[in-house]
């Protein structure tokens, strides 16, 4: 029991963060997934980009080849090339033509102020696409194609087109920027959708939680059937548990009733026999002993039975409205003490609730009120004060009050002050027991009305 209670707050904390935990878990998974996707995307982009650069350089090389003429085995290039980029310095498209021996025979105007240290190797393998770094550390894409203009060894050349990789780098950086932006955006959208999805998915859990609140508050008998299939087993089990607890409490109450009746009635018979014995003077002493023992047994039975019947329900959160309970009890006590015309002053909010089970509060208040009705001269006051998380229920009367030296005794279990009113001792003991089972305390002080003031202090 105590273990279960101890683990309760932790379980609640875990329960509250379920959606957040799922969110965090999914977010981490999504980020990991995107990180894993990134090299593949980047690789695919690089391949596509390089292919397009290769194609471009190849077509530029083809343009150079088609512009080239050989006169007597010598290569001549026209002054004005069809592709203007070879002629402008800013264009960054460089063209070179080497002969078989690797001697530069022509270079485009755009390459005049460049000093790229590329030497083609004429190996008859057709074309080559590479990335090189020059002496200054600059990178270039190089397309190198071997041509044989006259189908003879004498007119074999390497046509080389180049492009600085810095342009590519800018494109690559731009792409990566875009990629990160998109992935980030996608992640945000995903998380947003996920949040909505989880909220929607957890709606049934929140509905269940709301129903449980109602069950705990006692406004609902059990959980409804309108839950997702996955929860129906759980709600079904809970309903069966609630029902069996209810039945058990009912059975328990009935057997306590039976037990009380079957124990107390024989005691009443014994009591009557003792009274008959009492009439003969020679038996008076034995009769007194008998009556005392009967009284003791009766008090013990009464006390233990009341205690047992006030067993707290484990599933229901306890809260009872004070006003209707007080109405019920005052209605009953007004009847019993009709001649006294007791005036009951109320000093609490109309909606005042006390954190106790209804049955327990009824017994607690019944015992305190009867005490007050019995001892008062005409006025009883019931008040509730709330201060710093402590709730104080106070029942006062304008009677003679309890002398300070007897207060300790009256609060002690099973003791009674007034031997003329049997059962009073049990009353205070039960009151004390109920209060202690709710972790509260009972104080006995003087009342401003003039009599006794019983204060029940409970933490909210």
């Amino acid at each position, binding site marked *: 029991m105590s273990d279960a209670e101890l683990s309760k707050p932790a379980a609640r904390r875990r329960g509250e963060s379920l959606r957040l935990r799922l969110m965090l878990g999914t977010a981490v998974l999504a980020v990991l997934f995107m990180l894993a996707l990134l090299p593949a995307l980047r690789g695919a982009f690089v391949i596509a980009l390089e292919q397009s650069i290769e194609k471009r350089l190849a077509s530029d090389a083809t343009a150079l080849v088609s512009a080239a003429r050989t006169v007597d085995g010598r290569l001549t290039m026209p002054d004005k090339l069809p592709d203007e980029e070879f002629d402008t310095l800013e264009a960054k498209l460089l063209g070179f033509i080497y002969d078989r021996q690797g001697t530069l025979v022509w270079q485009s105007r755009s390459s005049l102020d460049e000093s790229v240290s590329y030497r083609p190797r004429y190996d008859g393998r057709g074309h080559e696409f590479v990335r090189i770094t020059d002496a200054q550390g600059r990178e270039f894409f190089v397309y190198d194609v071997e041509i044989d203009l006259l189908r003879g060894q004498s007119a074999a050349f390497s046509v080389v087109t180049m492009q600085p990789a810095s342009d590519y780098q800018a494109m690559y950086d731009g792409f990566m920027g875009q990629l990160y932006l998109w992935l980030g955006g996608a992640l945000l959208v995903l998380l947003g959708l996920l949040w909505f999805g989880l909220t929607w998915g957890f709606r049934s859990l929140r509905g269940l939680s709301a129903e449980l609140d109602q069950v705990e508050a006692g406004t609902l008998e059990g959980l409804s059937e309108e839950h997702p299939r996955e929860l129906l087993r759980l709600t079904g089990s809970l309903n069966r548990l609630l029902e069996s607890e209810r039945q058990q409490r009912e059975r328990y109450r009935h057997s306590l009733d039976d037990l009380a009746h079957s124990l107390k009635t024989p005691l*009443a018979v014994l009591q*009557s*026999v003792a009274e008959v014995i009492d009439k003969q003077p020679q038996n008076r002493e034995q009769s007194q002993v008998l009556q005392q023992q009967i009284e003791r047994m009766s008090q013990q039975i009464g006390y233990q*039975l*009341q205690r047992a019947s006030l067993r707290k329900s484990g599933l229901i959160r306890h809260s009872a409205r004070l006003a209707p309970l007080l109405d019920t009890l005052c209605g009953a006590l007004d009847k019993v003490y009709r*001649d006294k015309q007791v005036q009951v002053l109320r000093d609490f909010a109309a909606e005042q609730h006390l954190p106790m089970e209804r049955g327990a509060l009824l*017994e607690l208040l019944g015992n305190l009120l009867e005490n007050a009705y019995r001892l008062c001269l005409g006025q009883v006051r019931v008040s509730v004060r709330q201060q710093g998380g402590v709730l104080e229920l106070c029942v006062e009367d304008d009677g003679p009050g309890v002398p300070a030296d007897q207060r300790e005794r009256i609060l002690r279990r099973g003791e009674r002050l007034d031997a003329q009113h*049997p059962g009073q001792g*049990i009353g205070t003991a039960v009151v004390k027991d109920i209060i202690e089972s709710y972790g509260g305390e009972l104080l006995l002080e003087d009342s401003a009305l003039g009599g006794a003031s019983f204060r029940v202090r409970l933490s909210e």
Partner: protein
Amino acid sequence: MKLLVVEDEALLRHHLYSRLGEQGHVVDAVANAEEALYRAAEYNHDLAVIDLGLPGMSGLDLIRQLRSQDKSFPILILTARGNWQDKVEGLAAGADDYVVKPFQFEELEARLNALLRRASGFTQASIAAGPLVLDLNRKQALLDGEALQLTAYEYRILEYLMRHQQQVVAKERLIEQLYPDDEERDPNVIEVLVGRLRRKLEGQQDFKPIETVRGQGYLFTERCR
């Protein structure tokens, strides 16, 4: 007074029957609710003592049934559990007071007498009518401060008439106060008893509190306090 006692435990029922009888009451003691309803329909009781834990129809249902039949006599409940749920339910059903088992007879008697006094409108332990004072606790009548020598039957008739002052009381009602059952019911006995009572009350002065209403019964004419 004519009392109805409903208690299923035979020994306790017998105890109540004999002790209450000793106190000068006429007691109808029955073991279950059905029997109690029958008796209540047949006779006029002044008070009922009902155990809540009856077999068959419960004490609570019996009280409700009695009240629904317009039986207005006070009801004292005996409860074994003594918890407030039972007391509140019993009182709400129509009972007027409760005693928790086991009880000392004196406790029961005190509650019972208080209820009877209240029912007749007298909250004190005595009823006074002119020079006549009835001490309800000691079951004694005092005329000008002097104790009257009344038999138990004479006292019962006087108390009943005084409790029902200013009302015509039928002879049958008075017979019920004296005899628990139908046997030995002879209206002439009442006439004889009332005659003796009158002689004792109307000693010297002009004090004639009991009037005969021909064909109907008797009337206590003096106003009681």
